């Protein structure tokens, strides 16, 4: 291999050569620059290859023919090779990107650029502390110079502020180095480490000075105002390099220094890191300038990696895997985002809506925010998993909670930004891109995915990019150019095929979920045939969600479970975002979901007690005092998905505003993921107690309240789909109630619910969507009398509401029957009453649904509408048939499950004798009930027809009224504010307390951040003051501790 010193030598030779060229020969100069950067990259690549594939040993590079500490030495080992590769490659891509600016400024700028990249490599490779200082000064000067590449005039003042602060930093660094030299007698880092600097006179203070100076290069809070100004005003490609390379090099320098200081300085690093991470993530919330926000994000990520370095004592050999995973995800993502920012004309976050016409850029953006948020399959996901498991295993819960909080805030503003891109008005100026710029962005995206594959391979667990469902979903990205119906067919075929192949592997419980997810999903996809064109972006998102769901039910290990959970969250977020008014709802959905996901992550990590992963089935082996906490964490996490009361505010908007064929998917299928998780949890952990409180009892109460309040809120809704969404909250409350009863029949009922709810909710949503499509509105008071024009939809809704309400003969009744049996065998009286109460309330809104839409008077503007499109009606009719079948022969579904449940709850099962089912309290004969009801119905119907012949037909407008014309026409419609008396009586129960709570919380964070960011008042002198104050505070904290 080439001597790594040539990285430095080549850069310097080229820089000096450039000085000799004529000013006009810019093309030659640029070619030399690129060639040198390519050469440097190639050296790094060859070393990485040597270490990774051939197992070469680390190399010490001596200079001047003498050995350290009498001469300077460099080191090339795997970390150095990988880090220099990151630096050189970003340098090369950045130089490609900013071809125009480099040409404008000429060969001097190119020479400075080369030296900057070389200096970062030098910082990484050197083993001599004074040499480190020299390279840092090179970095400082070249940074100050390269900000001039910007076309923003303010870059000049940013560069100057940087110079001021770097002067102060170098004072401390020099003093520290010299006193450390005096104490140890050597300038070599390894030599100093061996000399135990802390024990020598003046050692602590000198180490502290060096440490704080190098940490300052990492831009810790609050001494980082200068960095933000550079990020905001510099050329975007330079900011990309600054973020990726400078942070990387500085972090490695701090890591080297920590070698000298020893383990007692690790908590300090952790403390500074976590404060920076949280503060910068919060301060990013009120930002509107895109580059400044990216700057805050960069600083936050550096803080996070510093925390990882500070946790070296427990992370041990995994430190490189975790630190690198986070670092490399951040570097690639940040560089990519800055490069994209160079393509967008405006500087507001909302100006990025211009990206909308460019699928490639959207995909790039999504990949980048996925990398930053730690979503699978990127390296930061694997790194996050490892970090959390170590922290939980060692009991550092407070730190873990802080890290996850910061991560949630960061994900929040990143996804908010994505919402702006997809939903805001596109600005006047379009994207402008040259091939150079696109090259850099594409390279970043490719690198990100390739690294995700690599990290998966290195993880020792499943490589997510090799899992079939995920690959299937990702393949739709490549197929997005096909027409929608082709993709739809492929999707349906794929899901059914997967189900057919894996059919035999499922136990009865999982089989139910598998049927609902795969076969049920295929049925709902039938409705998507109604779409025209290509529907770009729909299929990857939907398939991602289904892939996550499919992986979820097949997961036996905690890692796979969690990965599947996050995948389905992300996929469903993209689906929900597609609705026209969905921007705020999708955001609250993703925040709640990610919050829940983090709780699940913590729960799993605590349960693992330090192991890399564990079998979910072994959750049953957990004992107190750990077990109840794990139970609570996992339960709350799953309940965010089922929208239990208190965590429900995202659901009405998300499901209500989603597209016609998306609402059934998310309401009918996605909510079941949470139920599945709760099933698994309760199956393995059973009843748990915390401080004497029975946790399943608490769950029971939550379920009862969800049922009651969800149904109550539904009856006051004007919007048909929101009504159905609130109804889902109530129904999930029922299912949760059944689960929490912890007896045989309760679980049976919950499972029956899972099936029934899927069928009728999908059907109702499709019907509502079909009606909304034809009438152009979702408000029920604007409709009426549609029974004659849309008979199929009417039948579907009629069957649906009969099923939901639990009236015989349909399957809802069966569910009710099992439910009452279940409750009777327990002694929870008050929750029982509440849940009973919820039943008739549900009927109120169901009645409203059918009455206001289909019965009553037909509006003028709706006289000519047709039935809903064929493809939307077809699934509804399938569901009607299914409901009938399940109603008459419930055993098809339930019998095997009943037997399966015997292993958990041996008593209390049902007895199946032929067509009749009996329990301890009574019996139920579905066929008989159906026959009876049909006979009665038929008789009455025939009589009605007979009597009707003599009826006098009254035309619609054969009415008269006098007096004033109402100002708000809807107030005269009978369907508006349908349940006004109930609102007067019970309205107090549906005050938006929860919405106000969450709203107040986010407002508090925003206002706090807005006030705090005034700290950065733009004055360079103040920034120097901040730095010195930071030094003093940290010093006194250190001395005090």
């Amino acid at each position, binding site marked *: 291999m080439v001597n790594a010193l040539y990285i430095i030598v080549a850069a310097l030779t080229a820089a000096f050569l450039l000085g000799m060229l004529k000013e006009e020969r810019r093309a030659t100069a640029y070619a030399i620059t690129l060639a040198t950067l390519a050469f440097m990259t190639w050296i790094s690549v060859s070393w990485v290859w040597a270490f990774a594939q051939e197992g070469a040993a680390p190399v010490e590079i001596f200079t001047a023919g003498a050995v350290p500490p009498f001469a300077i030495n460099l080191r090339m080992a795997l970390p150095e090779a990988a880090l220099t590769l990151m630096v050189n490659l970003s340098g090369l891509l950045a130089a490609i990107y900013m071809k125009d600016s480099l040409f404008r400024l000429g060969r001097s700028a190119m020479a400075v650029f080369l030296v900057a990249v070389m200096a970062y490599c030098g910082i990484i490779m050197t083993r001599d502390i004074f040499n480190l200082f020299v390279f840092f*000064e090179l970095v400082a000067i070249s940074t100050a110079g390269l900000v001039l590449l910007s076309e923003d005039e*303010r870059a000049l003042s940013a560069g*100057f502020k940087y110079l001021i602060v770097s002067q102060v930093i170098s*004072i401390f660094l*020099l003093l520290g180095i010299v006193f450390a030299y005096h104490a140890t007698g050597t300038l070599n880092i390894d030599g100093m480490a061996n000399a135990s600097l802390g024990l020598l006179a003046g050692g602590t203070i000198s180490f502290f000075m060096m440490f704080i100076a190098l940490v300052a290069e990492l831009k810790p809070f609050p001494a980082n105002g200068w960095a933000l100004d550079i990020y905001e005003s510099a050329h975007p490609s330079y900011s990309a390099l600054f973020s990726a390379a400078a942070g990387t090099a500085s972090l490695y320098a701090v890591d080297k220094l920590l070698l000298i200081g020893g383990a007692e300085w690790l908590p300090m690093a952790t403390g500074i890191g976590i404060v920076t991470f949280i503060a910068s993530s919060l301060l990013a919330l009120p930002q509107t300038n895109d580059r400044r926000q990216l700057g805050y994000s960069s600083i936050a990520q550096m803080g996070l990696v510093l925390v990882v370095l500070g946790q070296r004592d427990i992370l041990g050999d995994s430190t490189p895997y975790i630190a690198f995973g986070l670092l490399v995800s951040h570097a690639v993502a940040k560089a990519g985002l800055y490069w994209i920012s160079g393509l967008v004309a405006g500087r507001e976050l909302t100006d990025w809506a211009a990206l909308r016409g460019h699928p490639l850029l959207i995909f790039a953006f999504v990949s980048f925010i996925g990398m930053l948020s730690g979503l699978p399959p990127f390296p930061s996901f694997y790194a996050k998993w490892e970090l959390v498991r170590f922290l939980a295993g060692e009991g550092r819960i407070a730190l873990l909670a802080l890290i996850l909080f910061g991560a949630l805030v960061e994900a929040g503003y990143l996804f908010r930004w994505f919402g702006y891109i997809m939903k805001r008005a596109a600005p006047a100026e379009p994207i402008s891109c040259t091939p150079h710029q696109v090259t850099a962005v594409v390279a970043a995206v490719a690198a990100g995915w390739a690294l995700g594959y690599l990290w998966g391979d290195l993880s020792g667990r499943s490589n997510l990019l090799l899992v079939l469902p995920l690959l299937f979903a990702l393949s739709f990205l490549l197929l997005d150019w096909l027409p929608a119906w082709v993709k739809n067919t492929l999707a349906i075929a794929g899901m059914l095929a997967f189900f057919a192949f894996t059919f035999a592997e499922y136990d009865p419980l999982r089989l139910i979920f598998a049927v609902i997810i795969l076969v049920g999903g295929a049925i709902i996809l039938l409705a998507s045939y109604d779409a025209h064109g290509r529907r770009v972006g729909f299929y990857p998102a939907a398939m991602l969600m289904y892939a996550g769901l499919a992986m979820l039910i097949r997961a036996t290990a905690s890692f796979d479970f969690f990965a599947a959970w996050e995948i389905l969250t992300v996929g469903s977020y993209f689906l929900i975002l597609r609705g026209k008014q969905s921007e705020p709802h999708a955001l609250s959905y993703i925040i709640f979901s990610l919050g829940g996901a983090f709780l699940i992550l913590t729960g799993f990590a605590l349960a693992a007690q330090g192991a890399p992963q564990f079998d979910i089935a072994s959750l049953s082996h957990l004992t107190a005092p750990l077990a109840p906490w794990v139970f609570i964490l996992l339960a709350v996490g799953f309940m965010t998905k089922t929208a239990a009361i208190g965590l429900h505010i995202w659901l009405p908007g998300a499901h209500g505003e989603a597209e016609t064929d998306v609402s059934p998917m998310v309401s009918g299928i996605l909510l079941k993921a949470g139920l599945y998780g709760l099933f698994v949890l309760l199956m393995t952990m059973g009843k748990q107690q915390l401080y004497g409180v029975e946790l399943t009892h608490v769950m029971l109460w939550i379920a009862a309240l969800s049922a009651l309040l969800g149904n109550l809120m539904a009856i006051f809704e004007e919007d048909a789909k929101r009504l159905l969404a609130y109804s889902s909250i109530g129904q999930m409350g029922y299912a949760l109630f059944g689960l929490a009863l912890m007896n045989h029949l309760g679980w049976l009922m919950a499972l029956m619910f899972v099936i029934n709810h899927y069928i009728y909710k999908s059907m109702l949503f499709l019907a509502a969507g079909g009606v909304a499509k034809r009438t152009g509105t979702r408000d029920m008071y604007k409709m009426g009398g549609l029974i004659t024009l849309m008979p199929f939809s009417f039948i579907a809704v009629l069957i649906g509401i009969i099923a939901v309400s639990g009236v015989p003969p349909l399957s809802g009744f069966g569910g009710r029957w099992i439910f009452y049996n279940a409750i009777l065998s327990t002694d929870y009286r008050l929750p029982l009453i509440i849940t009973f109460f919820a039943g008739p309330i549900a009927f109120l809104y169901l009645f409203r649904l059918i009455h206001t839409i289909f019965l009553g008077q037909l509006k003028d503007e709706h006289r000519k509408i047709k039935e809903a499109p064929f493809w939307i009606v077809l699934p509804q009719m399938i569901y009607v048939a299914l409901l009938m079948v399940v109603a008459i022969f419930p055993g098809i579904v339930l019998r095997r499950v009943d037997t399966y449940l015997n292993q958990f709850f041996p008593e209390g099962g049902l007895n199946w004798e032929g067509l009749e089912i009996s329990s301890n309290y009574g019996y139920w004969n579905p066929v008989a009930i159906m026959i009876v009801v049909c006979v009665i119905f038929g008789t009455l119907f025939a009589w009605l027809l007979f009597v009707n012949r003599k009826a006098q037909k009254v035309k619609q407008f054969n009415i008269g009224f006098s007096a004033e014309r109402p100002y708000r026409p809807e107030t005269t419609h009978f369907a508006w504010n349908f349940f006004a008396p109930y609102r007067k009586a019970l309205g107090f129960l549906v005050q938006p307390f929860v919405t106000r709570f969450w709203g107040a919380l986010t407002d508090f964070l925003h206002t706090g951040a807005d006030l705090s960011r005034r700290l950065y008042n*733009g*004055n360079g*002198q103040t920034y120097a003051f901040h730095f010195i104050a930071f030094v003093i505070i940290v010093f006194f904290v250190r001395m005090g501790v």
Partner: protein
Amino acid sequence: MAYIAMATGFILILIGLFGALTNRNILRMIVAFTVADTGVNMVIVAIGYMHGRTAPILDVAVSAAEAAARIIDPVPQALVLTAIVIGVGVTALMLAYTYKLYEKKRTLDIAQFTELKW
């Protein structure tokens, strides 16, 4: 002797920092930084000094054989050379920036250059 030089160096650093943090005129800030840099250099040089010894040059007065017993520590002198040059480089850069900033805004008050903030 070394203590006097070191103490003076520290005092210079403090004076320089005080000047840099309280003066609003950019040119005065730069001068203050120069003072601070000088202070740092003094401290570095003072570190190497050993009482009763002479400069690290091998000539008639100090031969190669007795060098180890007669000369002071040469390393800080090498370090300070680099430090001085780097300080000059940064100062020159800051002066050039000051000129450009003045050209744009016709003021040397650091508090006026706050377009980038929050």
